[in-house]
Each structure stands twice: as structure tokens, then as C-alpha cells.
């Protein structure tokens, strides 16, 4: 297995676009897993009464959009040493059930800091979501932190 070096050479690394079909059942399951009882996540009638075509996806739902094959640099990170540092979602409009979203993932930045436990490596990755008209719907910006030496 090729292990990619986690350093600035990773910046700009982009995955092939992948597609996610937004399903009502997946939305309901996700909302239930969060413990959010907002009816726009469960009832089409309520969602429609608020002007949506179908069930609305919770704001953090894009975290469930994953490629069939994750990037090697990502799978190579020791999960015992990795945590989420930050996450941000920017939306043009809410995602609704029935859509198909095209996702493009790009590494935006890689940098190091020295914390009390040694070196910390931060990786900033964007996930851009486009609707069927190829309009940018959302951007998810994720910052991961890996403790210890850089993975070589």
C-alpha cells in the first residue's frame, strides 16, 4: 500500500468527483442518530409546508457523503492519533431528499504546530457539493489533526 507523506505536497490533492443520492431513510436515520426531532427531517408534509420539495437534510449531513474509495493519504493516517480539530459548513440552500449531489474533495492546506504533546499536523480538506444543475450547493471545510510524528 502506498502511504502518502502528509506534508505540504498534499495541497491541491483532489479526488475524482463522486455522487451521493440523498435518501429519505438516510436523512431520518441521521437525524435520529443526532437525537434531533425537528419534523422537517422526518415528515414530508411538514417539509413541504415550509417550502421544501421533500425531507430536508440536517446541516451536518454532508459528513455522511463519502467516496467509495477514500484517498490513500486519508486511510493511511493512524486513527489512534487523529482527531477532528474544526468543521465548517457553508450553504447556498438546504439539501433535500431526492437530489443527487456531486462531491469534489480537495486538500487546501497542511501545516504543523508544536503542542504540549509534541508535533501536531493539521490537514484542511474541502468537500464541495454541486446539485444536478452543477450549482455549488455547499462547502464543507474540515480540519483534521494528527498527533506525533508526520506519517511517512
Amino acid at each position, binding site marked *: 500500500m502506498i502511504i502518502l507523506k502528509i506534508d505540504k505536497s498534499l495541497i491541491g490533492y483532489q479526488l475524482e468527483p463522486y455522487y451521493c443520492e440523498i435518501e429519505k431513510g*438516510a436523512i431520518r*436515520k*441521521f437525524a*435520529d*442518530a*443526532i*437525537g*434531533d426531532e*425537528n419534523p422537517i427531517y422526518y415528515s414530508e408534509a411538514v417539509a413541504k409546508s415550509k417550502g421544501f420539495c421533500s425531507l430536508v437534510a*440536517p*446541516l*451536518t449531513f454532508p*459528513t*455522511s457523503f*463519502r467516496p467509495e474509495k477514500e484517498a490513500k493519504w486519508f486511510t493511511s493516517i493512524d*486513527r*489512534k*492519533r*487523529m*482527531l*477532528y*480539530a*474544526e*468543521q*465548517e*459548513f*457553508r*450553504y447556498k440552500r*438546504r439539501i433535500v431528499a431526492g437530489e443527487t449531489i456531486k462531491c469534489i474533495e480537495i486538500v487546501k492546506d497542511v501545516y504543523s504546530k508544536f503542542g504540549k504533546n509534541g508535533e501536531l499536523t493539521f490537514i484542511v480538506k474541502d468537500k464541495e457539493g454541486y446539485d444536478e444543475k452543477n450549482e455549488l450547493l455547499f462547502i464543507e471545510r474540515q480540519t483534521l489533526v494528527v498527533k506525533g510524528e508526520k506519517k511517512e
Partner: protein
Amino acid sequence: MNSNNVFPTLVKDNITKVQLVKYAGASGDYTPLHFTESFAKESGYKDVIVYGMLTMGFMSQYAEMLLEENQEITRIKARFKKVVYPSDTITCKAELKGEDDHSLILDIFAINQDEEIVLAGEAEIRK
């Protein structure tokens, strides 16, 4: 927003290990830190840990709870400050950071039972 800028809070006090399994399936994140105790302990934690993104899910639920009629969240951001365990009680609180004619920004904090900030973030809301 209400004129006193005092917002209600949201308490999440029953984060079960079953919920972590549900979240694993719903999110597609199968990192064993969240459901395999031995893996979590080998990683230096006292128990399995709650997904940062699950805590962000609580924060999003909370931000939406504070919306007034016709308001929409256009941006939501979270910084994960401290590890959360399933036994923790998380309280979400908000403060108004800024406001103009078109939008407002709320500072949102998620605090554990020891008053430690586990998540700090903000929500930008279009009026």
C-alpha cells in the same frame, strides 16, 4: 432576535454507546475510537469517545432551535476543544456576536458537566 439577547439552552444528557453505534452507521464513520473500548484505551482515552461531528450535530440542532420565522443558517462552524465521553452532559449556549439588517452571527458553546468548553463555534443566520 429577542431584545434581551438571552437565549434558551439545549441540554444533551443521555449520550449512550448505542447512540454512537447509530451515528457510526448513519455517518459512515467507522473509526473504532467511538465503539471499541480497547482501541480507545490504547489511544489514551478512558473510554470510547463521542464523535466531534455528533457534538456538532447537537450544536446544529441548537442553532436551528434559535431561528425565528424565515431565518436560515448560511454558515455553521465548530472548533473541537475537548474530548467528550458518553457519560458527559452537554449544554449548548449562545451569545449574539453581531447583527446587521441582513444577517446575524451567534457565538455558540457546548459545555460539559464540569463547565469546560468542549466545542466553540458560530452560526451565521440570514434574516
